[in-house]
């Protein structure tokens, strides 16, 4: 009985300790961001690893998500004789929800896990300690560029996802199912608002970018420096990022579109 109470207390304390460490790390990373200006090359290199290499999966997923939306939306709308609204359905679901959320989930799987594994292995092979020995701050040299790269890449990827998805919906709806070409675009332009829909989608993707990259970097930096520890940290990155993205998406949606 007493043992289980002790265990509960220890678990609770270690949870709060990790939470605290995560936020302290975030503050340190943010403080290190201005120092990146003279070393912009580091950020570009990381943007390549995090963003450019994720392009293929984002473009392919976006295309297919858009095509499925076109197909399903058409089948539902045609019953009401409203298949002209297909463009609105595809564009609004992509720009408001699927673009930021699916991109963030894919981003966590493709780039977040790689970040955790890389940083975790750097820690396991004591590269980070070696840097500290040479009076190089690993937070500024290793973590901050990766954080900024994730912050830049995520909205870019989400915008590409949405744009490609709308083209995919166009291809299926107009090309294969015979929705009117003009109606697809004009209904979309009529109903999609620049400020209410597209800006809020961009804000969402920025928030998700920060959260996913932060979790990935923290898990890597906080992993137990063994091969098992790194593998666990990588798994945790993907699971926690997915949960955080989905939970935050609900909160952000309620705040943005709630009224």
């Amino acid at each position, binding site marked *: 009985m007493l043992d289980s109470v002790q265990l509960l207390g220890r678990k609770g304390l270690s949870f709060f300790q990790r939470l605290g460490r995560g936020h302290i790390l975030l503050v340190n990373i943010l403080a290190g961001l201005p120092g990146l200006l003279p070393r912009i090359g580091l950020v570009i290199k990381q943007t390549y690893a995090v963003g450019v290499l994720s*392009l293929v999966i984002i473009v392919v997923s976006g295309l297919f998500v858009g095509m499925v939306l076109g197909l399903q939306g058409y089948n539902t709308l045609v019953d009401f004789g409203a298949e002209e609204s297909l463009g609105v359905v595809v564009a609004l679901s992509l*720009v408001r929800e699927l673009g930021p959320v699916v991109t963030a989930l894919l981003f966590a799987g493709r780039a977040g896990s790689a970040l955790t594994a890389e940083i975790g292995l750097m820690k396991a092979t004591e590269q980070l300690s070696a840097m500290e020995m040479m009076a190089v701050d690993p937070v500024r040299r290793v973590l901050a560029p990766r954080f900024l790269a994730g912050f830049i890449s995520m909205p870019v990827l989400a915008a590409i996802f949405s744009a490609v998805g709308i083209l995919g919906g166009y291809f299926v709806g107009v090309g294969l199912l015979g929705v009117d070409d003009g109606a697809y675009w004009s209904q979309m332009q009529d109903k999609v608002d620049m400020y209410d829909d597209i800006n809020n989608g961009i804000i969402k993707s920025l928030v998700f970018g920060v959260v996913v990259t932060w979790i990935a970097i923290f898990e890597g930096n906080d992993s137990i420096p063994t091969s098992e520890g790194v593998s666990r940290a990588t798994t945790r990155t993907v699971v926690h990022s997915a949960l955080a993205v989905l939970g935050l998406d609900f909160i952000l949606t309620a705040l943005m579109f709630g009224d």
Partner: protein
Amino acid sequence: MTTRVIEIWVGIFVAAGMAALFMLAMKVSNLSTYGGDEGYEVTARFEDISGLKVRSPVTMSGVRIGRVKAIQFDDQALQAVVVMEIESRHNMLPKDTSASIYTAGLLGEKYVGLEAGGDQNNLVQGDEIKLTQDSLVLEKLIGQFVSRFMTDSAAENK
């Protein structure tokens, strides 16, 4: 891979993102229908505009020639004042044009439909459309129908 190639790829990546955003802004959203060519404003007074919103279309013969710019309430006359912005290339509307509020489809959104009169003079900035017809409210219509039906059947029973 050399730094140069990496930099080029990152450049292409960011440019693709910009292009996607540009497409979302211009091709998908209503940004391109904002402003553009400045129009002239005309106002119209209605007893009932229920359902009409700012940026609802203003049409003539079914073609959109402008948008609702503002909806105000006149405290003195107790009427709704609708300010419409008509595109400046459509500057040949007669002065006695009439405005009605219609519904697109059975359950669709409301829009303002203009019908041309026969006046020689044209509407200009700041003019008011005198002839207006209110928004059709389904509940009122059913109410009128039911009350007429009741009085008719009451008269028959006498």
